[in-house]
């Protein structure tokens, strides 16, 4: 273990493998060892696929020896347990899918594996991605490596905790309202949610189809660029994926922030923001400004409508998306049902947790005859207003910057009795989902020993701008290098 391979970023590991400093089997073995010793404290994994990982690593080493190395050859990563992985448990953090072995691979799983990646396992998450603290998982909450009494955020909390604790250099995640960016902020990692349609949703268990987007959690923007280049691109199996050219994201990292027009949203620094978090974010903005970025204040008058809008649209779609879990073909099935209704009621009653039920009920309500116009239709209209706020802002700025979350990591159990406070954790991130925009979080400081994230949002297809801005900021600071003490 003296190699300290776990401390390296994906980009560094790629170079090391290429040079032959170590093999993928050695690297994979080291990380599996770390998962073995640290996961009990974190509960970041639902499944560890040790045997398969070692076999893949061996094949990757052989491929490299034969001169056939793919872009990610032999590089380890983990998948959020929302992505279908063939012959491997895919639970979505739910009792409903406790025993569900997927018969197929999600497109991104296929693409990453196709490039030679080694999958170490599947990470814990809020049930069906519904949550901001990882406490709704049937498999128990994930702990934040920076403070084991704290939440790592959610819903991609297992992915974020695993990356922060150096159990893996990278993880996939999904982001419906902030589920990649908020946990990245709360764990001091880098989180990227691409433009809606940039990455295929095929094989990603749907929560809210018009908002869901797959992305990555890493320890640097360069690593995010490397992975996005492999994951992005049109998929004929997803009608909402868009046939837009995939640029060289790694090439986009270079350049400076000089002249970059950075929008600072007035409403982001209102009452809801924790004061110390605000200070850390302002300092980050000052770093960008000192290096040539031009800060401009922008107005987002409909920002306060984003959370209520989201909590109409997302539950509406989820109430329909989750109807397929009926105990008939897969997933939990109630024992000895009396009749069809009993089969439905008990299978779903037993299979789903409280937060999922709450959202299914909310969604069913807002789509019901007589309420549809007042809730669902109105929310879709407000969604346009919010998107317009962004479009207006982007007439004058290249990127919008601000806090990712209103506070650093909170204590587990602190917000579980108050869903509204929990929902407000996503106030800064939800807008990007409602408007389909790419967003990113990169570490920008600490408050009382807990990481804080800088949130960046760009226009559609602006991933290159995001990556360049975040990467350049990382070159000017060292926040992203910080490692939680117990996991160095």
């Amino acid at each position: 273990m003296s190699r300290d391979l776990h401390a390296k970023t994906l980009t560094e590991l790629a170079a090391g493998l290429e040079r032959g400093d170590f093999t993928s089997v050695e690297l994979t073995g080291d990380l599996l060892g770390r998962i073995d010793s640290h996961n009990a404290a974190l509960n970041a994994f639902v499944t560890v696929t040790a045997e398969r990982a070692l076999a893949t690593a061996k094949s990757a080493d052989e491929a490299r020896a034969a001169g056939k190395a793919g872009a990610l050859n032999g590089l380890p990563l983990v998948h959020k347990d929302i992505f279908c992985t063939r012959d491997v448990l895919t639970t979505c953090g739910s009792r409903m899918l406790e025993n569900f072995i997927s018969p197929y691979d999600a497109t991104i799983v296929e693409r990453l594996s196709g490039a030679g990646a080694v999958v170490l396992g599947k990470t814990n998450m809020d049930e069906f991605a519904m949550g901001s603290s990882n406490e709704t998982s049937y498999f128990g909450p994930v702990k934040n490596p920076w403070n084991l009494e704290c939440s790592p955020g959610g819903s991609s909390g297992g992915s974020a905790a695993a990356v922060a604790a150096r159990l893996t250099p990278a993880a996939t995640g999904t982001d419906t309202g902030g589920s990649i960016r908020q946990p990245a902020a709360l764990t001091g990692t880098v989180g990227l949610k691409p433009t809606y349609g940039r990455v295929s949703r095929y094989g990603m268990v749907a929560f809210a189809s018009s908002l869901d987007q797959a992305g990555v959690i890493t320890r640097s923007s360069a690593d995010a660029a490397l992975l996005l280049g492999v994951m992005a691109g049109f998929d004929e199996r997803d009608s909402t994926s868009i046939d837009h050219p995939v640029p060289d994201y790694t090439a986009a990292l270079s350049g400076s922030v000089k002249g970059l027009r950075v929008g600072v949203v007035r409403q982001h620094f209102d009452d809801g923001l924790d004061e110390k978090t605000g200070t850390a974010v302002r300092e980050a903005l000052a770093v960008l400004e000192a290096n040539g970025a031009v800060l401009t204040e922008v107005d987002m008058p409909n920002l306060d409508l984003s959370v209520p809008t989201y909590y109409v649209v997302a539950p509406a779609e989820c109430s329909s998306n989750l109807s397929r879990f009926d105990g008939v073909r897969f997933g939990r099935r109630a024992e000895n049902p009396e009749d069809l209704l009993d089969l439905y009621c008990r299978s779903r009653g037993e299979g789903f947790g409280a937060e999922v039920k709450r959202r299914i009920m909310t969604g069913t309500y807002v789509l019901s005859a007589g309420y549809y116009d007042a809730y669902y239709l109105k929310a879709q209209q407000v969604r346009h207003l919010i998107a317009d706020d962004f479009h207006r802002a982007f007439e004058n700025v290249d990127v919008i910057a601000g806090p990712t979350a209103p506070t650093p990591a909170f204590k587990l159990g602190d917000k579980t009795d108050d869903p509204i406070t929990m929902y407000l954790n996503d106030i800064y991130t939800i807008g990007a989902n409602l408007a389909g925009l790419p967003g990113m979080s990169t570490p920008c400081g600490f408050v009382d020993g807990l990481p804080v994230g800088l949130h960046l949002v760009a226009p559609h297809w602006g991933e290159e701008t995001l990556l360049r801005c975040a990467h350049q900021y990382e070159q000017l600071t060292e926040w992203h290098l910080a490692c939680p003490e117990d996991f160095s």
Partner: protein
Amino acid sequence: MSSAWEVVIGLEIHAQLATSSKIFSGASTAYGAEPNTQACLIDLGYPGVLPVLNKEVVRMATMFGLAVDATIAPRSVFARKNYFYPDLPKGYQISQLELPIVEFGELFITDADGNEKRIGITRAHLEEDAGKSVHEGFDKSSGIDLNRTGTPLLEIVSEPDLRSAKEAVAYMRKIHTIVRYLGISDGNMQEGSFRCDANVSVRPRGQEELGTRAEIKNLNSFRFIERAINIEVERQVEVIEDGGKVVQETRLYDSVKDETRSMRSKEEANDYRYFPDPDLLPVEIDAAYIEAVRETLPELPAAKQQRFVADYGLREDDAAILTASRALADFFEEVVASTQGKAQGVANFVIGDLAGALNRDGLDIEQSPVSTAAVAGLLDRIKDNTISGKIAKEVFEAMWAGEGTADEIIEAKGLKQITDSSAIEAIVDKVIEANPGQVAEYKAGKDKLIGFFVGQVMKETGGKANPGQVNQVLKQKLG
């Protein structure tokens, strides 16, 4: 009853589109496979799968829209119809609600008085079919066959313009003919690829306001549609005349008991919570696409019927029969093109002898054992007087049995008509000699006896003498 009450009917026809794969997946749509062998992960609604629209269905719906003079929507939207049922794997059916692909169409039927009547087509939308629940053969449970899941359907909704069960059947037949002409549906009613729901209500004649309707579900034969509507009308009139009220409900027609019975009332109806499907993009159709599809439209039944009357001089009703199926019309035209015989003669033969034989053996025109060329060959022999129409029937039966071409059979069986006048004269002389009594009567003025003499000559020749010629010679000899 018929005078006091007016019947109002609207039909929702479900035509299964003849694509080789499903509307949102690549699985096969072939009928009759082992249960659950033609359902892929998308049809099964597995976690994470997504629908992708089969472009063929858009083309087919566009063809239909053009065929009924409808508007093709520049933008149509798929919506989810949410309800739980075991044969509906996703817990929602993907359909179209607010923005269907086809709107504002029309077609014309002939009403009871023989007048042309316009029937409005409100809309036609695309949707996926559900699977099937199988209740027989399972103890205390039901089986689910998901082969049919995701099969593309075009639901064609008429205006409430139909005023009798007969009109409803006439309209349904027209639609049936159109979809088969277009090649967008096989129209097979036994297999359920063409079926309808009928919305039926009655109102006192002269009243503007519509009566409360009942919807009769899943009618899959023209006979059942007529029966079910008539029975439902009788039931509704009886309810009202007994002082009751018709309730809005869904009813099922039981063809065995010949009655309709309630399935569920409006109060029990589902709230389907329709909303636009976020997994699918709106279908956008531009004018160039519509024009390209229009180019591929075949001649439609109404136009073909008119042309048959104008170009071939056929009787109106014969033209209607021949154009009821595109294959039959094509058969007719191919024969006309390759025979010396007159078109009306071809029509008579196709509608009479050929249709009779097909019907007798339960075959479709496509399965006719006698080709168009063979039929033309037969009709040519009538035209050039080689055989008579009567002998032709015998030749045709032999052709049907696979004994060869008309010429081969005529030759082999010696059926060639006797046209040699000396031969006919000799037989006529023989007949006159053998029947002196009748000859005397004929000469005394009993002209009708000419038939008797013709018959005798034909009998002598085994029907092979040319009847016209015989007639002529007889008249000459009997002077």
